[in-house]
């Protein structure tokens, strides 16, 4: 009996060891099956700390299958760790046929497929939807198209302030850095429990609000690389006026205006703070204000968050830096067995805004319903719970603006994007480039393989730029040492950086 028990225990343990690492092997079927890692921001933006209902996901999957003949599995990202999870999935060999990312990072490693032929064959609606500059940003100098665009040039970091508080203080919405400073001082004095200025270092879509919202007020080129008179591309820290910008941020930090946790914020914390109504001025990604605005209003009756008309300005002009059409898009893995299926699914969503609407908001008559389908007008029936947009692969302004609604729940967000204004001639706030400065190297692709080869100290330079600037803002390092900091950058290879970046810039301009 004892021997039987020992044998049984051994088998059980052995089975346990192996069972923990096994994966289901999909059945061979004629229906193409693709797996898409949806890290395009829709799930993170919608409340990715929860998950969509399995029943709704099954319903969506069945709908896509019935419409396209393709079975689509979606992998949801971990909010705040989207790229790390993607890299783990790719490195572990898990089937991921498509995902969102910066194409140069993957193309240089032969990890993705060029899409020119596939798009020509199956993607006419996709090609029609995006402007030429978005496709240009997704293409290399040889004309290879590496992904489906995700972005157009966009005003992603407007300074939202509490207009109701400004009015209460007898002020207008601050339009200049000086006026903003007066407003922040008034907030500090009159609203001691509030957060005068919420700014972020790293946010959604690579947003770095503290720089992108303010740096342009003190520098000619804003928060971006710039072209020096010697014809070389240099990092933003070397710009004339950048030190003044840092000094101002340091003054604001010391005065208690900037929220002290700015270097370690994440989307959830930012949105919770904004929804609490405590934030007097917001310099984080715009959707942190616009998406949960209905909740913010419900929590704080009378709240009114607006950005200055025409944009914030400073001694050097417009303060905001435009987010250029980036290299971020939907990419198809080089290991994908059915790349045509991915394009066909995308074409299905791009071919009709109504299809995208279902993918974005879930099955009709659940969270929303059409009020006039012929005019693509809809209304929201209830708060967005149960479905986070897992199948919304056609995210981006072209499709998001194609439908419209009068529902108050998303009015602020849709208003900023100009939802429903396609063809009307109206320039939505999100596309009003007159409010900011376009980076001089917008559209230039800096190849990570070349960077790794030509700039041995690249990682050190990146860390030093990030770390020391935070220290200067927080006062952990005196601004009087700014020049010494620049010298340190040169000592660890900034010249390599400048030469390499300049070569890549010139080869593409």
């Amino acid at each position, binding site marked *: 009996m004892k021997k039987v028990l020992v044998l049984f225990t051994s088998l059980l*343990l052995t089975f346990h060891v192996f069972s923990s690492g096994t994966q289901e092997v999909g059945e061979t079927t004629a229906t193409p099956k693709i797996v898409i890692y949806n890290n395009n921001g829709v799930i993170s933006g919608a409340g990715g700390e929860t998950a969509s209902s399995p029943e709704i996901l099954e319903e969506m999957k069945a709908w896509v299958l019935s419409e396209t003949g393709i079975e689509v599995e979606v992998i949801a990202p971990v909010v705040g760790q989207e*790229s790390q999870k993607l890299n*783990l999935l790719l490195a572990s060999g898990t089937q991921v046929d498509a995902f969102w990312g910066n194409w140069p990072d993957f193309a240089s490693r032969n990890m993705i497929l060029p899409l020119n032929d596939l798009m020509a064959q199956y993607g006419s609606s996709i090609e029609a939807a995006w402007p030429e500059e978005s496709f240009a940003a997704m293409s290399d100098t040889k004309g290879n198209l590496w992904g489906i665009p995700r972005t157009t040039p966009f005003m992603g970091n407007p300074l939202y302030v509490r207009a109701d508080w400004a009015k209460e203080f007898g002020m207008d919405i601050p339009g200049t850095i000086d006026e903003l400073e007066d407003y922040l001082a008034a907030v500090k004095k009159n609203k001691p429990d509030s957060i005068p200025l919420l700014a972020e*270092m790293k946010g959604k879509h690579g947003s770095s609000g503290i720089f992108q919202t303010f740096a342009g007020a003190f520098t000619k080129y804003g928060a971006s690389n710039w072209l020096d008179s010697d014809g070389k591309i240099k990092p933003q820290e070397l710009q004339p006026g950048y030190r003044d910008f840092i000094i101002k941020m340091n003054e604001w930090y010391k005065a208690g205006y900037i929220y002290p946790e700015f270097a370690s914020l994440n989307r959830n914390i930012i949105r919770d703070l904004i929804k609490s109504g405590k934030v007097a001025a917001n310099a984080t990604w715009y959707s942190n204000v616009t998406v949960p605005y209905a909740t913010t209003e419900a929590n704080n009756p009378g709240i009114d968050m607006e950005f200055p008309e025409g944009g914030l300005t400073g001694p050097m002009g417009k303060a905001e830096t435009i987010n250029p059409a980036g290299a971020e898009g939907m990419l198809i893995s080089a290991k994908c067995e059915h790349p045509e299926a991915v394009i066909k699914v995308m074409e299905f969503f791009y071919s009709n805004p109504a299809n995208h609407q279902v993918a974005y908001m879930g099955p009709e008559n659940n969270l929303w319903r059409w009020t006039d389908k012929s005019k693509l007008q809809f209304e929201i029936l209830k708060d967005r719970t149960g479905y986070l947009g897992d199948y919304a692969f056609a995210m981006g302004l072209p499709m998001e603006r194609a439908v419209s609604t009068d529902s108050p729940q998303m009015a602020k967000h849709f208003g900023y994007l100009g939802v429903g204004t396609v063809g009307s001639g109206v320039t939505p706030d999100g596309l009003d480039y007159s409010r900011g400065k376009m980076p001089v190297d917008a559209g230039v692709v800096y190849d990570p393989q070349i960077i790794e080869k030509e700039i041995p*100290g690249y990682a050190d330079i990146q860390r030093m730029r990030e770390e020391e600037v935070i220290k200067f803002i927080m006062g952990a390092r005196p601004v009087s040492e700014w020049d010494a900091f620049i010298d340190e950058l040169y000592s660890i290879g900034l010249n390599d950086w400048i030469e390499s970046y300049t070569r890549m810039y010139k080869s593409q301009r």
Partner: protein
Amino acid sequence: MSTLSGERSPSINRPLWRNLRKDKFLYLLMLPGLLYFLLFRYIPLMGTLVAFKDVAPFDNAATILSSQWVGLKHFSAFISSHYFWNIMKNTFALAGLRMVFEFFCPVLLALLINEVRNRYLKKTIQTISYMPYFLSNIVLAGLVFQLLTMNNGVIPAVVESLGGNPVYYLGDSRYFRTVLVSAIVWRNIGWGTIVYLAALSGIDPQLYEAARIDGANRFRQTIYITLPGISFAIAIMFILRISVILNQGWEETLLLYNPGVYSVADIIDTYVWRMGLEQMRYSFATAVGFFKSLLALALVLMSNYIARKSGQQSMYR
């Protein structure tokens, strides 16, 4: 194998195959563990080859073998990095702090719990001290953030009420390590007492009785009976801890740190994380990780040597 008394076990004189046949069921019990280590610890060691090549894991496995060797290029790049010494200093500083506080605090707590005479109070203290151990790192980090946030956090409020000037402690390099180590110690201290409490229960009560007759007070009893009585457990636990000290604590660091405190918080593992999973420099990250493994091996051998020389239990002869 030898017994504590130095006598050789009878089984050691038998040929291996005879042992295997005689105790086949006992050896069978070892099989799952051996397979586990083979599959998940030894076979993956082949991946270390990546450190000596320029390979991305997205390529197929055969590429790992067929691609060209680059020698010690990635090791050289790490060692010549501007932040190499900073990362090394942080790694050993954090390991040292954990060694001091996370290793010795449980010994101290075990000694204190051992002095509690009321059985129910003793059990209550033990149970409460174990509880934080079951928190995940994510929850632990969430608690720390909530306690320290400048937006109505408890700690800043307490500091302010005491007339202090609170700062964001997680963003200040002067306080970061204190916060990190305190959080880790708080979570692990109770669980760490288990081995010592077990060892304490094995000490012969007659020794204490004799000491009391000789006039030894509680402190002297602790010094001359209790501590020597559990010294073997302390030595073994010390060596075991040394072997993993460079591996532990990185999740907590990763969850709590930010670029503003890199100068005191960036350790080898967080550096590997950023290089590997954020910048996708897998060969480089593997080389750095391998470098750390060599350091850990050196630490184990050194501590084992010291333990043996000082007459304590050692793991290897």
